[in-house]
């Protein structure tokens, strides 16, 4: 397993897309932090950028990479290796490579510019988003046989979680505004990893109440500590469950 991870990393860290991804993140981070002198505001803009970019890049890049390496996967599976080992090693390789790119692009500049507890949570949520969306990419890869369909599914998944979900949530709140929807809403937010990432950072900043319904709710019901622990647990589930399903499906897949 370690061998495969090592060589996938070898390959990916020299991949142009990964390098460009890291450079663009770095450019955005530096330019955003140069704009204002308020650390909290800077972090908020960075949070929004993370929430927008990381999911879609992670899921798209991973899906394309998995589909492109089908033939190599086939060759490796003709070796005495368990299917599960092979699949998880590939996932680990790609997740590590994307995480390194994120840390290099956002992590290093942001830690130099303003280093607070909220910075760390921003990085943690960014890394979680990377892990979650590459796990979802893996799931898409094992479920679809066709590359084009797979990429389509990846785009839809990313758009669903970054844009569509919030719209649905708003219409839910609007239609049930006469009822106490606060608690069901908390449950619904756990269904979207992007919202979870947002909440995790907002709980650390003092602007939670300003930044929309979900943040205020979490703060009100759980307080910072319990809220953070709850979101982290939810995000862990979001990483592990797709991986388990993917490994199960892959066991019976024809390659």
């Amino acid at each position, binding site marked *: 397993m370690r061998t495969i991870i090592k060589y996938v990393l070898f390959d990916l860290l020299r991949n142009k897309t990964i390098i460009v991804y890291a450079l663009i993140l770095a450019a955005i981070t530096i330019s955003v932090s140069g704009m204002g002198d308020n650390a909290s505001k800077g972090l908020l803009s960075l949070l929004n950028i993370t929430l927008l970019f990381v999911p879609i890049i992670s899921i798209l890049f991973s899906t394309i990479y998995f589909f492109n390496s089908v033939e190599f996967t086939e060759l490796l*599976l*003709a070796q005495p290796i368990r299917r599960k080992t092979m699949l998880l090693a590939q996932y680990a390789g790609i997740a590590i490579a994307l995480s390194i790119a994120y840390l290099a692009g956002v992590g290093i500049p942001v830690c130099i510019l303003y280093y607070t507890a909220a910075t760390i949570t921003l990085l943690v949520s960014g890394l979680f988003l990377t892990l979650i969306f590459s796990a979802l990419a893996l799931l898409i890869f094992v479920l679809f046989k066709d590359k084009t369909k797979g990429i389509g599914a990846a785009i839809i998944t990313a758009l669903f979680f970054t844009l569509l979900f919030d719209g649905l949530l708003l219409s839910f709140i609007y239609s049930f505004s006469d009822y106490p929807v606060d608690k069901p809403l908390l449950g619904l937010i756990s269904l979207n990893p992007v919202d979870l990432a947002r909440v995790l950072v907002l709980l650390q900043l003092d602007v939670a109440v300003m930044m929309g319904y979900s943040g205020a709710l979490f703060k009100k019901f759980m307080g910072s500590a319990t809220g953070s622990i709850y979101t982290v647990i939810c995000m862990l589930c979001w990483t592990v469950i797709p991986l388990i399903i993917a490994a199960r499906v892959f066991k019976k897949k*024809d390659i």
Partner: protein
Amino acid sequence: MIEITQLTKTFRKFKALDDISLHFERGQTISLLGPNGSGKTTLIKSILGLVIPGKGTIKINGAVIKDQWDYRSQIGYMPQIGRYPENMTIGQVIKMLKEIRKDCKRYDEELIEGFNIPAVQHKTMRSLSGGTRQKVSACLAFLFSPEIFILDEPTAGLDPVASELLKDKIIKERANGKLILITSHVLSDLDDITSHIVYLQEGKLLLYKTVEELKKVTGQEKLNKIIAAIMQKNHPKECLHYENNY
């Protein structure tokens, strides 16, 4: 060595393999022939455990391969299309496979030398031509001196020199008592190396015979003539009812 009984595989409604039973032994070179889509690659992939058959069993050295993985250490596989991680060099790919196969300590590097791979080992896989990639695939299949070779279109895309080298290697390995399975559409390439012919059509086994028998039945010397004669249905009945005495 490989025993296949009543193997059936369906993709949705399409029957890729239909009730195939075959028995292969050491020292045989088996050519899997048949038109496109006749199930050759599916049969190969079933033996490798890449395709999971719906019905039937495959035994290798007496052990059923279902849900097993370590039996693959006895198989060297050369895929039809060799695509490798773009940014890895040839040297890295070979080293990676060696690290994965820690169980194997002695390497058969005859083809690596023969194809002069060390001279180009710093090139990245992205920059290679189809033929060179095919050479790398061939090297990897022979590297761990397995008992069974499965070669899917091995000579497609190779230049004549490399192709001859590979054929010589196949003949040599067969003489060492290895079992070799080949699919190819270039019948002239199979002429001197084949001992048995398996002919598939629409997932069904049409015939499994030694080349000598087929030569006798059809009265032809060359493999492409033999196959043409069979396909024209001049002799199919005769061929099919001939006693299977491999």
